[in-house]
């Protein structure tokens, strides 16, 4: 019986004074990848924000894993004036984690030669890869990724696929929103459709 990383009970999510959906009950187990789908405006981003703990739900409960989680939103959280290296170093200090894996993570994602350039000079895909580097720097059991594949090229998609595979094999879980198909082995993927 694999343990559950994320569990929700009758979750109701809203934005502003509108309720987007209610009564959502599901779970993400270790080694499981949940692909969250739904039309534009269905509430996928809002759901991920509530699951991450950034916003409060209208009603219902969310149980998060003890080891913490990673949340990747639409924005990359990179300050344009600072280099990728400086940005990730700051993030490490915030999370109180060891900064030594930063260089290796950037190497893996193909950003090694760009790491000291100001972030505003990077392309959209490169910034996305820099944001994804956070997932490699601090190991956490649960990944909540909102459109992680946006702006990535074929190479970037391959990187993400490998990262997800490794993470799932290591006992982690992930909930991913994407309009594209996920570059992982289809047998591990569960679909969650937001009506």
């Amino acid at each position, binding site marked *: 019986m694999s343990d559950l990383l994320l569990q929700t009970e009758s979750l109701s999510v809203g934005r502003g004074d509108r309720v987007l959906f209610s009564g959502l009950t599901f779970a993400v187990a270790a080694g499981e990848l949940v692909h969250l789908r739904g039309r534009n405006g269905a509430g996928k981003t809002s759901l991920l924000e509530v699951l991450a703990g950034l*916003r409060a739900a209208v009603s219902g409960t969310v149980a998060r894993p003890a080891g*913490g989680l990673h949340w990747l939103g639409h924005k990359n*959280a990179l300050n344009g004036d600072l280099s990728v290296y400086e940005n990730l170093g700051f993030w490490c200090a*915030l999370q109180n984690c060891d900064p030594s894996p930063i260089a290796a993570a950037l190497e893996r994602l193909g950003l090694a030669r760009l790491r000291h350039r100001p972030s505003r000079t990077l392309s959209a895909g490169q910034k996305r890869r820099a944001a994804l580097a956070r997932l490699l720097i601090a190991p956490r059991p649960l990944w909540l990724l909102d459109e992680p594949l946006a702006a990535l090229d074929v190479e970037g998609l391959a990187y993400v696929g490998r990262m997800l595979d490794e993470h799932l094999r290591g006992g982690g879980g992930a909930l991913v929103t994407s309009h594209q198909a996920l570059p992982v082995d289809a047998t591990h993927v569960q679909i969650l459709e937001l009506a």
Partner: protein
Amino acid sequence: MLRAFAAALRRELRVAARHKGDWLLPPLFYLIVVTLFALGGKPNDPQLAAFAPAVLWVGGLLSALLNLDRLFRADYDDGTLEQMFLAEHGPLAVVYAKLAGHWLLGGLPLALLAVPLALQLGVPTPVLGSLLTGLLLGTPMLSLIGGFAAALTVGLPRAAVLLPVLVLPLIGPVVIFGAGAARAAAAGLDAAGPLYLLASLLVLGLCFLPLAATAALRNSFE
């Protein structure tokens, strides 16, 4: 938590070093405002020296307001704010660091600049001490209150117009006591009373305003 504070403060100073124009503007503005006051009055007017504390305080306030809108906006726009709130030690350390950075780059230079400007306005030398002490106690309060107002309005499109309206009623007592201390010194009275009141306001502000600012930032996600 101290690590997050230090890293955030370093980050603020680093960004400021790469955009020197940002923090050179307020002192320049201060210089312009005070000089215009002097130009607008009679040449060598002794009454100008009596009015100088008010001019210096209000000029400092307006100059410090210039950079407020940008305090949290960049982080709001690029998504760093959300990562702050997901952090282990929460965003409070970063908020303290941002307010400290705003004072070090804004309020402190303005307070120091006030001394030569005061001499330019004809303020007698014994008054300078109370003026400077008052400004050194009052400008952090300005960063705290301004930071709170900036946090309240961070997601709003026309925040820059709203900021002065929000800052003014809260900064009133600070200006009253600060300018009052300088005026008391000018009249030969003991300036310690208003200065102590300023100090106690600062302590109160340091304890509560960053908390309020953090709550206001969290509100901006909704």
